[in-house]
C-alpha cells in the first residue's frame, strides 16, 4: 500500500468521523441496539437481535414511531466482547441515545457506573448485576422482569411442588450445571441457602467458557453423583451441548431444568431424546398476537427484517421483541410524563420507572396474553415477575405450568445484601437524587 493511499484513507476517516457526529434530525429519537451476530455466542444473539430490531421497526412502519416521533435504529456489533461493547457505547454516546441494552453481563458491568454520569439509562433485561433491581441505589439501571435469584427460586419451587411440597426436597440432590463465569455463579449462594433451609444437597458442575462444547467430564460426574434434578445456567453454545450430553449420558430429561436462555435450536440439538427438557420463561412463543402479526406484515414481508420467516416467533426472537417492548414503553411513558415528544435519556429513565404493563395496556399494544402483567417503580427496577415452566415436546415449547411466584423473602435478602455490598465497596456511590414520579 502506498503511503498516499494510506493518508487518503485517514483523511476520509477523519472527514467521516467529523460528519456523523451532529447526526440526527430533531424530530426523532435515537435508539442504539447492541447486538452480537458474530462470535461464539452468535447462535443466541442473532434471533434476539432480529426480534429487537423488528419490533421497533414495526412501530416505525405502522405508527410512524412512538407518539409520532420516528425512532432512529442503529445496530452496533459487540460480538459479546467487552472491549467492542465499550467501544460501541462510546460510539453511540455522542448521539444522544435514550437507552442502551448491552446484552452481555460483561459489557453491563463497566457501563453501570457510567450511566448516572452520562445520563443514559441501561436496560439489562434479566441479566447483568442482579443488585441493580434496587432503583433507590441504581436509579439508571433496569433489569426487569426477574433476576437470576428469582429464576432459581422459581425452579426450586417448581421442583418442590412436583415432589409434593418443598419440605419433601429433604435428602434429595440437585445438580447445578453452570457457565464458570460471574453469570453462572451468581445463583450459587441462594441455592446453597435454600439447600440449608430445605435440607437438600447441592452438587456444582462448572463449565469453563472454552470447554462449552466439551462437557463429557461434567456429565460423567453427574452419572457418579446421581442428582435427582439438574438445573442449568448456561448461555450460547453451552446449552445445546449440554442437552446433547444429557441425552448421550442417559440423564432423565424430564428432571433437567434450565433458566430462561436456551432457544429452540439448543433443544433441537438433542434430537428426539431431548423431549421433556424444561425451562423457565416469561413470555409466549409463536406469532398469534396482533403485534407479531404486524411485525410479519409491516417488516418481515416487506423484506426489512434479517430474520428468516420461520424464525419469527421463536423463543429468543420473542425475547428480543419483549426487550424492545420495554424500550418502546419506556419512551412512550417518558412522553406522557414529560409532555415532550422528543425525549432524552433522562426522560426515558423516568419513563421506565412508570412502565405499567397491565392486561389493558398489553391489549392496547396488541400483545394480550403475550406476557404476565408487570410494573416498575422508582424503588423496584425489576418487578420480580413470576415466570412459567415450559417443556420441549420434541418440536416446540409447550407451556406446562401457571406462573410461579419467586420466593420473595429469600431473594429480597440476597438482593439487599448485594446492593449494600456494592454501595459499601464503592464509597462515594451517589445517593439517589433523581426525580421520582412513581412512588411505590
Amino acid at each position, binding site marked *: 500500500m502506498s503511503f498516499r493511499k494510506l493518508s487518503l484513507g485517514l483523511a476520509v476517516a477523519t472527514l467521516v468521523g467529523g460528519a456523523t457526529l451532529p447526526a440526527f434530525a430533531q424530530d426523532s429519537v435515537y435508539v442504539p441496539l447492541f*447486538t452480537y451476530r458474530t462470535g461464539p455466542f452468535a447462535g443466541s444473539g442473532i434471533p434476539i437481535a432480529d426480534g429487537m430490531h423488528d419490533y421497533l421497526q414495526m412501530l416505525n412502519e405502522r405508527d410512524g414511531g412512538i407518539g409520532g416521533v420516528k425512532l432512529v435504529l442503529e445496530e452496533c456489533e459487540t460480538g459479546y466482547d467487552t472491549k467492542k461493547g465499550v467501544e460501541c457505547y462510546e460510539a453511540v454516546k455522542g448521539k444522544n441515545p435514550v437507552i442502551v441494552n448491552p446484552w452481555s453481563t460483561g459489557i453491563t458491568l463497566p457501563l453501570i457506573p457510567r450511566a448516572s454520569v452520562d445520563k443514559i439509562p441501561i436496560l439489562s433485561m434479566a441479566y447483568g448485576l442482579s443488585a441493580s433491581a434496587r432503583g433507590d441505589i441504581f436509579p439508571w439501571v433496569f433489569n426487569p422482569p426477574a433476576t437470576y435469584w428469582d429464576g432459581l427460586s422459581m425452579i426450586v419451587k417448581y421442583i418442590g411442588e412436583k415432589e409434593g411440597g418443598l419440605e419433601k426436597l429433604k435428602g434429595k440432590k440437585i445438580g447445578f450445571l453452570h457457565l464458570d463465569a460471574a453469570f453462572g455463579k451468581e445463583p450459587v449462594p441462594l441455592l446453597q441457602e435454600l439447600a440449608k433451609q430445605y435440607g437438600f444437597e447441592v452438587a456444582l458442575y462448572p463449565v469453563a467458557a472454552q470447554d462449552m462444547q466439551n462437557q463429557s467430564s461434567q456429565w460423567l460426574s453427574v452419572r457418579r453423583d446421581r442428582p435427582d434434578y439438574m438445573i442449568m445456567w448456561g448461555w450460547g453454545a453451552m446449552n445445546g451441548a449440554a442437552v446433547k450430553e444429557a441425552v448421550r449420558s442417559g440423564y432423565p430429561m424430564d428432571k433437567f431444568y434450565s433458566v430462561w436462555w436456551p432457544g429452540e435450536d439448543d433443544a433441537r440439538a438433542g434430537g428426539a431424546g431431548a423431549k421433556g427438557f424444561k425451562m423457565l420463561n416469561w413470555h409466549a412463543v409463536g406469532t398469534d398476537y396482533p403485534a407479531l402479526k404486524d411485525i410479519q406484515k409491516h417488516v418481515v414481508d416487506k423484506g426489512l427484517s434479517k430474520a428468516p420467516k420461520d424464525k419469527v416467533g421463536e423463543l429468543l426472537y420473542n425475547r428480543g421483541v419483549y426487550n424492545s417492548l420495554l424500550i418502546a414503553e419506556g419512551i412512550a411513558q417518558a412522553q406522557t410524563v414529560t409532555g415532550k415528544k422528543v425525549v432524552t435519556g433522562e426522560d426515558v429513565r423516568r419513563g421506565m420507572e412508570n412502565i405499567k404493563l397491565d392486561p389493558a395496556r398489553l391489549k392496547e399494544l396488541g400483545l394480550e396474553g403475550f406476557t404476565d402483567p408487570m410494573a416498575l417503580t422508582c424503588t423496584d427496577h425489576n418487578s420480580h415477575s413470576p415466570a412459567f415452566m415450559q417443556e420441549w415436546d420434541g418440536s416446540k415449547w409447550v407451556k406446562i405450568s401457571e406462573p410461579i411466584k419467586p420466593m420473595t423473602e429469600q431473594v429480597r435478602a440476597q438482593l439487599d445484601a448485594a446492593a449494600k455490598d456494592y454501595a459499601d465497596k*464503592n*464509597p462515594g456511590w451517589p445517593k439517589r437524587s433523581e426525580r421520582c414520579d412513581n412512588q411505590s
Partner: protein
Amino acid sequence: MLYREAGQFKTNYVADRAIFPLREDRIGLGLIVLVAYSLAFLGNDFLLQAVLIPFLVFSLAAIGLNILTGYTGLLSLGTGAFMGVGAYACYKLMTAFPEVNVIVWIFVSGFFSAGIGALFGLPSLRIKGFYLAVATLAAQFFLQWCFIRIPWLVNYNVSGALEAPLRTLFGIPIVGATATPQTRYLVVLTIVIVLTWLASNLVHGRIGRMWIAIRDMDLAAELMGIRPLQTKLLAFAVSSYYCGVAGALLVFLWYGGAEYDVFNINQSFFILFMVIIGGLGSLIGSFFGAALIFIMPIVLGIVLPAIFEPLGIPIAAETIEHLRFMIVGALIIFFLIVEPHGLARLWQIGKQKLLVWPFPY
C-alpha cells in the same frame, strides 16, 4: 529532507550512550509528547475514551511482551493472564489500603505480576520456542481459573467482577465513574511515558544487551558469562511488570469495572499481534502495532459504511464486523509479506529515505 544528522559530534561517553543522540530526535519527541498532552484538551470524548486510552494501555502491554519476545526471544501466550494479575492485585491493594494513592498501587501491582511471571518463567531454562509458548498457555489457563475461583480476589463481590471505586489525585477523581476522560487520559499518558522512558533505558543498557545476547544465541551468551536463568527470569519479571501495570490501567482507567473474561486467551493473542506487526525488539514498534491492531478496526468501522452507503449498498453492523475480520487478517499477512520485521522497520526505512531525499541514496 527536513534535517541533517551530520555535524553533531559527541565528546564524551555519556553523550554517546544517550538514548536520543540526535538533537532533532529530541525535538521531535518533545513535539510528540506535547501533541499527546494537548490532545487531552482538543480531542472529544470518543477519541479519548474509545481510542487513545485503550491505545496507550495496549501499547504498554505490547512493550511488556516485546521485552520478553522481541528482546529476549521468549515467546509467551500468557500476556492476558499477567495483565489480569496486575489488575486483581491493584484491586486488592486499593481496597485494602484506600488511604494510599491509587497511582502508587498501580505501580506496585506490577510487582505482583512480575513475581507470578517469573514463577511461570522458570521452565524457560529448559524449554524453548513454541514449546515454551504452549507452556505459557498453562499460566494463562491456570491463572484465569484462579480469577474465577478465588472470590477473595474480588473481595467476595456477588457479581464476581472487579469494580472501580472512586479514587482521587489532588482531589480530582481519576478512578471511578466520575473521572472525566481527560483526567484519565492524562494519568494514563503520564504513566505510559514514564514506563516507556524506563524501558528504553533498560533495553539500551547492560540488561538490554544481556537480553539480546540471550535471544541471539543463549549458548554463546552463557559462554560469555551471562547467566541464562537469571537473565531470562529477569525478562519474564520485567515483562510481566509492564503487563501487570497495563492490566491495572485497563480495568481501572479504561473499563471502570470488568469480569475475569477480559483477560482471556484472546487478549494474549491480541497483544502478540501488536508486538509482531509492530516489530519485534522495538519500543516504537509496540506503539505502531497497537495503533494498527487496535485503531484500524475502529477506523474500518467508520470508513466501510462511508464507502458503501453512498453507493446505495446498505451495510449491516455484522457485515462490517465480518469485513473487519477479513481485512485485519489480510492486512496482517500483507504487512508480514511486505516487511516481516514489522512496522518499526518500515518506519526506519522511511526515515532513511527521507533523510537523503530527493536523492535515492
